[in-house]
């Protein structure tokens, strides 16, 4: 004979189901704008202003237009954009910035959280203080520095100023502070130097923080608008946001084309995030403290 499920199990099951229902509906609501965007991308230009989501005539023509496979039906010319080039540029710049920034921030965060030296807190407060300076203010003098270094309109000009970040240092310092001091005290008693403690003790434990910072940095640079807008003059150096902004300026009234371009620009990002998400979750569970 089968035992009936206990009351506790039923209650838990109901709770879990309600949780699933709530989060699923929330996801549905959060995705409404994207559903609208995808539907718009497949609508004909006459249909865009309609109240309905689902296009009456489902056609991939807009996608083909923005990929320069067929000309624009109105002007009979190919649209002026190179999506794949923009995506490559964005990935190239954002990857370099991410690698450099995580590296420099991690080292600095170690010095700010694990080494005791005179003036540490004052220097750190200076870092924190500059983080509050509006980025717009820094932009003008930074641009003049890049002019004098002859780096305007180059990849280096996009990468180098973002390779050092007070934010990353602050974030990793906070993360490293949550790692118990007893770990490196134990390593120090065993005769390890700072470099060894950094590489063998702190870095592995700070990995979730570093991955999180890497994702923040990558996304921030992938969609950064202001700095590339100032630095880049040539069309072949355009990143995705600059390209889309120029595209909006030129074809702003053709919402269906804009949405198609957006859709294509988003696909590589979504794939990338799914890969990184797994790694993030795996790294996050730092189990336990110091044992026995």
């Amino acid at each position, binding site marked *: 004979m089968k035992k009936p499920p206990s009351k506790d199990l039923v209650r838990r099951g109901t709770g879990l189901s309600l949780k699933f229902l709530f*989060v699923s*509906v929330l996801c549905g609501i959060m995705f409404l704008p994207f559903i609208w965007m995808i539907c718009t991308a497949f609508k004909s230009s006459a249909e865009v202003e309609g109240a309905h989501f689902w296009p009456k005539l489902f056609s991939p023509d807009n996608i083909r237009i923005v990929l320069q496979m067929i000309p624009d039906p109105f002007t009979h010319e190919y649209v002026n954009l190179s999506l794949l080039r923009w995506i490559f540029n964005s990935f190239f710049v954002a990857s370099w910035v991410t690698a450099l920034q995580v590296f420099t921030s991690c080292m600095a965060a170690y010095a700010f959280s694990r080494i005791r030296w005179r003036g540490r807190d004052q220097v750190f407060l200076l870092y924190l203080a500059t983080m509050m*300076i509006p980025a717009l*203010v820094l932009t003008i003098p930074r641009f003049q520095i890049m002019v004098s270094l002859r780096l305007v309109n180059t990849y280096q000009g996009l990468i180098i100023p973002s390779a050092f970040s007070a934010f990353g240092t602050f974030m990793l310092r906070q993360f490293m502070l949550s790692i118990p001091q007893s770990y490196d005290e134990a390593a120090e008693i065993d005769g390890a130097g700072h470099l060894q403690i950094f590489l063998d003790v702190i870095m592995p434990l700070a990995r979730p923080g570093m991955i999180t910072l890497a994702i923040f940095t990558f996304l921030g640079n992938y969609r950064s608008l202001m700095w590339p807008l100032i630095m880049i003059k040539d069309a072949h150096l355009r990143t995705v946001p600059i390209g889309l902004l120029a595209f909006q300026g030129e074809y702003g009234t053709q*919402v269906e084309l804009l949405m198609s371009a957006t859709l294509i620009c988003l696909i590589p990002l979504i794939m990338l995030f799914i890969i990184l998400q797994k790694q993030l979750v795996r790294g*996050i569970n730092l189990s336990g403290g110091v044992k026995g």
Partner: protein
Amino acid sequence: MGMLWTGMRERKHFKAAVGFLCLNIIGFLCFTLGPVLLSLYMSFTNWTLRRSVELQWVGLRNYRELLTDSNFWFFLYNTLYFMLAIPFTVCASLLLANMLVDSMQLKRRALRVRIASIILAIGALNCTFLFLVGRPDPALILAVIYAGAAAGVLWGSVSYRTMLYVPSFASGVATIILWQQIFNPYHGMANNILGQVAQWLNLDVTLPTWLNSTKSLLGFLPLPETFSSGGFGLGAREAIMIMGFWMGIGGNNMILYIAAIANIPQDLYEAAEIDGASGVGKFWHITVPSVAPTTFFIAIMATIGGLQGGFEFARIMTQGGPAGTTTTLAYYIYTKGFVEQDLGYAASVSWVLFAIVFSLTLVNWKYGNRKMEAAT
């Protein structure tokens, strides 16, 4: 002897610190501290992009002008108004993180697959039916919800985290343009849905005109004439705040909170369970205090970001309008500096902004540290 030993130790530590810091410090000096000092100098001059004007030291003139500039106070009010959305967004992120921190997976894989396929089958039937009776839009939305539920059962909360993070990492030029279209009062998605809900409830309401409206939820206050208040209601600022909520709720803050909650030792919860704590009690007495350092970090970052924010929204969606109601201080600095080319004045506005940010952060720092010390 002891003193000497401490001194040597200290020097060794100092050398190590220099080694670890040198790269970062060089970049910091060249691309942060140097530009900061240059912009401070600019704020005391009439620095401009026009070649015909000679560079002059004007002392405190820019700052004096600013204090009597009614626009400055109006745009400061706008900036603070936008920041009212931050606590709501952060609380929502914490609640979501608390919900999504456990894997939400049933133990047996076969059972998961079975439940997921049942959900998908019901969903397919439901959506096909709606589609066939000529209602493709609700079918589409329900399809997403069913697919989300099936993915949730199959892979657990990871799939929800991924889905909820999408708006945040997609945010940028494209999504801002998308929301501009959504808030279009005539054919935008927002008013389509609101109109249908109003019809369904038999309500006779005038729908908000969103980005064209100067109304605000604080419009009933006796605001000065120069604040161009259109009275109580939903206006351009609320539209941007809704978009901000959509972008922020499942974003970086939620990820930070998930990391923080996952790091809370499980035995704390077990001990509380033995003491008979309820779910709410555990959340309030263990989770919230344990993630206090993360909340502290988020509060500081949100204050700094909020006071400097609003540039992209204003530039892409509204150009600061209608009647200046969506112009934040950041956008004011941009228009003063790059449109009117008055860089000296723009720099002085930004330094006043910095003073506000800095004092608020100091308060945050003092108060937050004391609270955290009390908690531990």
